[in-house]
């Protein structure tokens, strides 16, 4: 059957930027031909398994691998004795003291699952049998899994850190104490945001091979940051960077969990060396994925804010305590983002929030989509609604008085240039019919059902120098004699569609149709350096590199034409496959003819464009929180409409409107898809996603008990794209992909209060919590006043 559903077959996309061109990898994915590391298999490949601690906290006394080594089919076993015992971490540049994890722990284990070794065998069955034959003698130590208990004097010491506080992050500006005293009204709230799992569908998986004679390591990894992974491997294995090659294939989702090297990546390489160079594959199962990869920091967020009579924010103070789990991972920067994001959103001069990231004997908290902003978004945006209510102001009116504006410098020296926050709020509110719905007691009140509407706003960075002094991205555009165009980018497409967006940018910049581009991404030996897919940075930073590479290739072509036809190069342009003389407004030739000339007898000129981009930022002073962390900032307003069943406590999200300042939509369909995916993840986090522990063990390590959103109950999602055309962005684009997740929980919590008068301050929002809160209201059927429950 040759039917096209959208007649996109054989469509040619000239000037592709701004068009919803089909995904560059679309056909491969829908036919099952796209290869993930999960699908990779090599001849004589061994299967590896990690040796893990069964205890939350224990000293390792002895590891006896003799019996396991004798098992037929076992090729290699490694423990800390086979390593250099070098610690690695994810915030080495700014927070060297938080480098605290060893690929294989030598002396102590700090959570259930902590890696102390690994085995490689001919198949999984044999590897699992070998694990059972390994005798490890432990001395169990007292453990602590509750973050508040862990901070108390006398709590078990997990690392050397005093009171188990791995990171203290003070953010301090102005004189908040005085400003609070002078405020017309002051309000304090406490919130709790739960732990969550990334739950990418492709688990963590890698294949490592150590060519022992040439001393070269190759790791095929399901990674968001191949260059970061390469750096950690080289460091811990004491290899030169250029002796380690990390190859990213298609990645089945990351969401922050695949941003750093895991011990399994290290183990696959070292096992391969010990097995004489045979490739070793290690693949997590779903239980391992939930229990031993990375998770979202649970956070207690206490915040106190002063306002003037008119509703202007005067000062904010507070404290954030985050459950970091056993090691620091990305904890320091997650804390920074959880506290400092507010400066992009609200104008506030007097501020002090101290962040504490605390070790516990639980799985490691790391980077998860939203990077601390989901937790703070829930707290701050719920708090803002409560402040507005205290003052008798409409939540939108209150926010509009206090939001940041275009072309301003925030108190912590962030430079906001284009800023569509006001427009986002106004467009979302108009689309949602806010004025007729909010606070309207009679709006859809039928039987036990109450409808309500709530708003949350947010802003996000596009990039952050997290592990190097620079965060540059590079790109190469290679134009072959046959007219094919290759884009080489170090950026890691993990499913968000960056290969497509970057190809659109490169094609447009070069002046050719999108269909010419072949994209090669994320191979540390072939593609230029790129720090990776995080902080919504790829479209903005890697996009700027692709733009420059495309432009550079174009200039090389135009130079030849200028020389041949003796015209001024400034009068030539290559647009939409045609070389034009812009002075005479005539078409000189098409792209293929231009290439014929470039590769002709006389010229023989290879067209290889290069691009490099490092955003203009200033270093952050992490003792205060000052610094312009990003080259541009994106903004976002979100309105949720919910229906609460006051009999059962069930909440249905009916519709979400999301207005997003994305600078310029390189691919509107992909932008919408990112927004919709964020909303779904936000809804899941609000209601059901709650990674729970008992004595340090994850008790819901499966999709049956850790409930991610499924298709039934998906609300209508309405995206509004605000294009502010950032002068620094490629074709005006900003990054996106995380901001839409930040305000969702608060928008829903605010809508629930609008619907039935109860305020839930601890996530997840469950029917039981709503019923309990409703029970404390005097007359739930008539009142619209709020009753709060605190944890």
């Amino acid at each position, binding site marked *: 059957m040759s039917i096209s*559903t959208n007649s*996109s077959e054989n469509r040619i996309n000239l000037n592709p930027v701004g068009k919803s061109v089909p995904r560059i*990898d679309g056909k491969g994915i*829908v*036919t*099952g031909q796209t290869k993930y590391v999960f699908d990779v298999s090599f001849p004589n490949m061994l299967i590896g398994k990690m040796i893990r601690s069964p205890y939350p906290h224990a000293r390792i006394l002895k590891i006896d691998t003799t019996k396991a080594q004798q098992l037929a089919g076992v090729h290699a076993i490694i423990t800390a004795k086979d390593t250099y015992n070098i610690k690695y971490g994810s915030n080495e540049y700014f927070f060297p003291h938080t480098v605290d994890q060893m690929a294989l722990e030598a002396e102590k284990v700090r959570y259930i699952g902590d890696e102390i070794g690994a085995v490689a065998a001919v198949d999984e069955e044999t590897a699992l049998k070998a694990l059972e034959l390994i005798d490890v003698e432990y001395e169990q130590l007292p453990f602590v899994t509750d973050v508040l208990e862990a901070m108390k004097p006398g709590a078990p010491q997990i690392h050397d850190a005093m009171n188990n506080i791995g990171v203290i992050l003070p953010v301090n500006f102005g004189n908040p104490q005085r400003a609070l005293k002078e405020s017309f009204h002051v309000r304090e709230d406490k919130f709790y945001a739960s732990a969550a799992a990334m739950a990418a569908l492709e688990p963590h998986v890698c294949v490592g091979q150590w060519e022992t004679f040439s001393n070269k390591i190759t790791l095929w990894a399901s990674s968001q940051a191949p260059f970061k992974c390469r750096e950690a491997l080289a460091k811990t294995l004491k290899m030169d960077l250029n002796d380690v090659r990390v190859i990213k294939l298609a990645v089945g989702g990351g969401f922050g969990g695949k941003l750093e090297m895991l011990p399994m990546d290290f183990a696959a390489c070292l096992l391969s060396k010990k097995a004489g160079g045979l490739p070793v594959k290690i693949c997590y199962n779903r239980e391992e994925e939930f229990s031993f990869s990375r998770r979202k920091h649970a956070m207690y967020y206490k915040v106190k804010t002063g306002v003037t009579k008119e509703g202007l924010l005067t000062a904010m103070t507070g404290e954030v305590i985050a459950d970091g789990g056993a090691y620091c991972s990305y904890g320091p920067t997650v804390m920074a983002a959880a506290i400092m994001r507010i400066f992009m959103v609200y104008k506030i001069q007097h501020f002090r929030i101290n962040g504490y990231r605390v070790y516990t004997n639980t799985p490691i908290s790391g980077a998860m989509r939203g990077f601390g902003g989901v937790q703070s978004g829930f707290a701050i945006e719920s708090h803002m609604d409560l402040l507005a209510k205290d003052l008798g102001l409409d939540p939108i009116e209150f926010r509009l008085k206090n939001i940041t504006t275009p072309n301003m410098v925030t108190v912590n020296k962030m430079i906001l240039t284009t800023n569509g926050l006001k427009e986002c709020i106004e467009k979302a509110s108009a689309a949602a019919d806010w004025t007729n719905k909010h606070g309207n007691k009679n709006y859809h009140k039928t039987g036990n059902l109450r409808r309500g509407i709530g708003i949350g706003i947010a802003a996000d960075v596009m990039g952050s120098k997290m592990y190097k002094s620079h965060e540059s991205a590079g790109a190469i555009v290679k134009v072959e004699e046959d007219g094919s165009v290759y884009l080489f980018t170090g950026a890691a497409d993990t499913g*968000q569609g960056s290969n497509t967006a970057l190809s659109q940018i490169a094609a447009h910049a070069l002046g050719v149709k999108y269909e010419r581009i072949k994209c090669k991404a994320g191979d540390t030996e072939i593609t230029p350096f790129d720090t990776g897919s995080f902080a919504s940075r790829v479209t903005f930073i890697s996009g700027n590199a692709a733009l420059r590479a495309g432009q550079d290739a174009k200039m090389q072509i135009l130079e030849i034409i200028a020389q041949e036809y003796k015209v001024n190069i400034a009068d030539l342009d290559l647009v939409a496959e045609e070389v034009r003389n812009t002075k005479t407004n005539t078409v000189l030739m098409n792209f293929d003819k231009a290439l014929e000339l470039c590769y002709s007898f006389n010229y023989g000129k290879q067209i290889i464009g290069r691009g490099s981009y490092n955003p203009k930022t200033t270093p952050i002073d992490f003792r205060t929180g000052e610094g312009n962390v990003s080259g541009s900032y994106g903004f976002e307003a979100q309105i949720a409409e919910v229906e609460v069943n006051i009999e059962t406590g069930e909440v249905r999200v009916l519709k979400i409107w999301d207005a997003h300042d994305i600078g310029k939509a390189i691919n509107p369909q992909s932008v*919408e898809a990112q927004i919709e995916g964020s909303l*779904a993840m936000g809804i899941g986090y609000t209601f059901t996603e709650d990674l729970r522990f008992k004595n340090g063990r994850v008790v819901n390590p499966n999709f049956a008990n850790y409930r991610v959103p499924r*298709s039934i109950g998906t609300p209508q999602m309405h995206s509004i794209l605000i294009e502010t055309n950032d002068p620094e962005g490629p074709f005006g684009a900003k990054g996106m992909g995380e901001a839409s997740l930040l305000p969702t929980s608060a928008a829903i919590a605010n809508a629930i209060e609008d619907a039935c008068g109860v305020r839930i301050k601890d996530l997840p929002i469950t029917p039981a919590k709503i019923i309990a809160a409703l029970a404390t209201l005097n007359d739930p059927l008539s009142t619209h006043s709020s009753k709060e429950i605190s944890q």
Partner: protein
Amino acid sequence: MTKLTINNKEYSLDLKGHETLLEVLRDHLSLTGTKTACEESECGTCTVNINGKSVLSCITLAADLEGEEVTTIEGLADEDTLHPVQQAFVDYGAVQCGFCIPGMIMSAKALLDKNPNPTQEDIEYALDGNICRCAGYPKIFDAVRKAGECLQNGTANAKVNSEKKEKFKSTMAKGLTYEEFLKLKE
């Protein structure tokens, strides 16, 4: 030896007896288009069709499938032309990381084969067993709806085409002018 029919191809396999269809597809036959994200029937990623019904291959014993028609994602496209469901997933931007997509498409195909004009509720129910962590479903719903429309039109078009063909044949038998021939060819 167990005889299995997968994507209209016969395979004779030496099975131990306890292998799941998923293991047979991925490990024995290298048909890695079918993925899995849990291996415990929770995620839907391993969905294939058996006799037109969507089935989880991770909990289906391969040895039980003699005489059944198994279709996997590799068996949908017609040579180089995508199946309308596949094409719709590309066209409507339903694809992100893609790991859930083969299973999602097989569930969608089973639905549309039975009911090419599904309601929103039908689609949500048919796909509820398939987790997508990236896309949040709206674009997937769009794709399934459009694919359904396409399949309906396609069936209609195929019918028109076969009528035209018949007419052409009968006219050719009678003989016709060059102009008439060109007109028919249109």
